[in-house]
């Protein structure tokens, strides 16, 4: 099994979000970047397939040189090698087209991604990649087993789950449940040392024109102060008469 794990390089969840250049750009000043939390579930599941079923695991990111520490972290967690597609990730479709080239050239038969990145929250790259390649695709994936060429996949649906089967090749967009939170891995010293020697190759983009572009950013409007109430009667009355939500 040849697995490709898509790794998005995103601001740490505690980051304060600010913009610069007339609110046209994200201000990365002082921001710490991490592996996208949803992608960590995908990477951890990939490590399981590597250890239990002898899969090889490549991690990939579409981004500029600043994303390399995040790829090295994925190597330290245990991926075999890494690829960086050397272009700014600006639009979901453009990123999916870059990844489609990587999948075709590398002959991967299982692609694991997160269901969305926590920065732009597009939630579209894995599904677009699958459509471009005509691979089977499961979104919001909360369970994946592979037996030979056959995959059994669980997907979260509104109010329950759906169990699906497919032959490989397959792409999934994972979330919590794909592996348990407690099974997520933190790189250890040995992993970090080994990661330095693992191959990280840089491929040039096919560069297609983006389908969308961001004109400007806006912050959330400041919120009015919280009304503190002393008793539940008052709360019920406010929710009924003022907020009109009950």
């Amino acid at each position, binding site marked *: 099994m040849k697995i490709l794990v898509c790794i998005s390089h995103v601001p740490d969840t505690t980051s304060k979000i600010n913009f610069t250049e007339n609110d046209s750009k994200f201000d990365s000043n002082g921001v710490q970047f991490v592996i996208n939390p949803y992608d960590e579930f995908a990477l951890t599941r990939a490590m399981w397939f590597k250890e239990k079923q002898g899969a090889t695991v490549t991690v990939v990111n579409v981004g500029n040189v600043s994303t390399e520490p995040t790829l090295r972290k994925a190597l330290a967690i245990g991926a075999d090698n890494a690829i960086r597609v050397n272009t700014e990730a600006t639009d979901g479709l453009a990123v999916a087209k870059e990844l489609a080239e990587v999948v075709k050239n590398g002959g991967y038969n299982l692609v694991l991604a997160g269901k969305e990145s926590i920065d*732009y929250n597009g*939630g579209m790259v894995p599904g677009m990649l699958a459509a471009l390649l005509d691979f089977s695709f499961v979104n919001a994936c909360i369970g994946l087993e592979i037996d030979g060429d056959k995959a059994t996949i669980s997907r979260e649906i509104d109010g329950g789950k759906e169990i699906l089967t497919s032959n490989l090749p397959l792409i999934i967009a994972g979330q919590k449940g794909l592996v348990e*939170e407690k099974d997520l891995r933190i790189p250890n010293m040995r992993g970090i040392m080994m990661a330095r020697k693992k191959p990280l190759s840089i491929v040039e983009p096919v560069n297609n024109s983006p*389908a*969308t572009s*961001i004109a400007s950013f806006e912050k959330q409007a400041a919120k009015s102060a919280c009304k503190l109430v002393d008793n539940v009667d008052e709360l019920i009355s406010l929710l009924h008469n003022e907020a009109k939500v009950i």
Partner: protein
Amino acid sequence: MSVLVFAETSEGKFKKSAFEVTSYGKKVAEQLGTNVVVLAINSSDPTLLYTYGAEKVLNVLNDSLKTFNVKIFANIIKQAAEKENSQVVILDSASNSLYLGPNVAVNLNAGYVTNVVALPSSTSPLTVKRKTFSNKAFNNTILNTDIKVISLAKNSYGLIENEVSGSIEEFSPSLVESNLTSERIEQTTGKVTIADADIVVSGGRGLKGPENWGMIEELAEILGAASACSKPVSDLGWRPHSEHVGQTGKPVASNLYIAIGISGAIQHLAGVNSSKVKVVINTDPEAPFFKAADYGIVGDAFEVVPKLIEKLKEFKANNA
């Protein structure tokens, strides 16, 4: 030219979000000076869409489509868009629609934006406002392609009545092959889901243990609400993962969100701050949730919640 809306059904019945996207699609069509066409699959009563402005409804009636399949459904949307010469395709943010969006966009060679919260601010080029950075900000996105696909964020536009005398057309698209097979669905029965709920009652680590969730469930039941929890609560196994809300869990965009024994960490707030009205019940007046909430009670959940249940029962009895 037209605007195509996909109205999601579940066992033949429209989801509430189907009416919201129809309302939105009607208005976008007006902005573009064109008509709205709504596509439904196996709807038992497509005329319900007239109330929200659907001038024309394409209803696909086919038993083999009772089971959802992403590739087959996306291809049907594509065929409808081609038949109606649609310039804009609008989906909601229910789990199946979010699953369909990327496939529809690729097959129509369209730019795609999700999490959209408002009508286009410009039609040329088409520009929409969307939530980004996990609800901490917005961006205005321009769609550069001829055909555009938009996913409207839940509860961001509302249901707007706009009665029209519409027409229904039976539509029989061809069905593509798919390698993906649905084996079975395991539904948690009888419960309001977080995705569909108007009200969400959520508990955090302040509730001390899973044995104390009885009052949360009772409160949720009285309000017709879904129950939810903070991340550590689901990590500890007190509640199922499906109830975890926040930046790395489910997003909540309900009318009312009640947080009980939840501190209001930035990752928690990111996922729930799209809710219109937020209430916090917490012993600690310094808990960050008070900065994000509209109404708050500083108090012990084990005293406040039972009282709230009792008083709400009275309130419901008087307002029934």
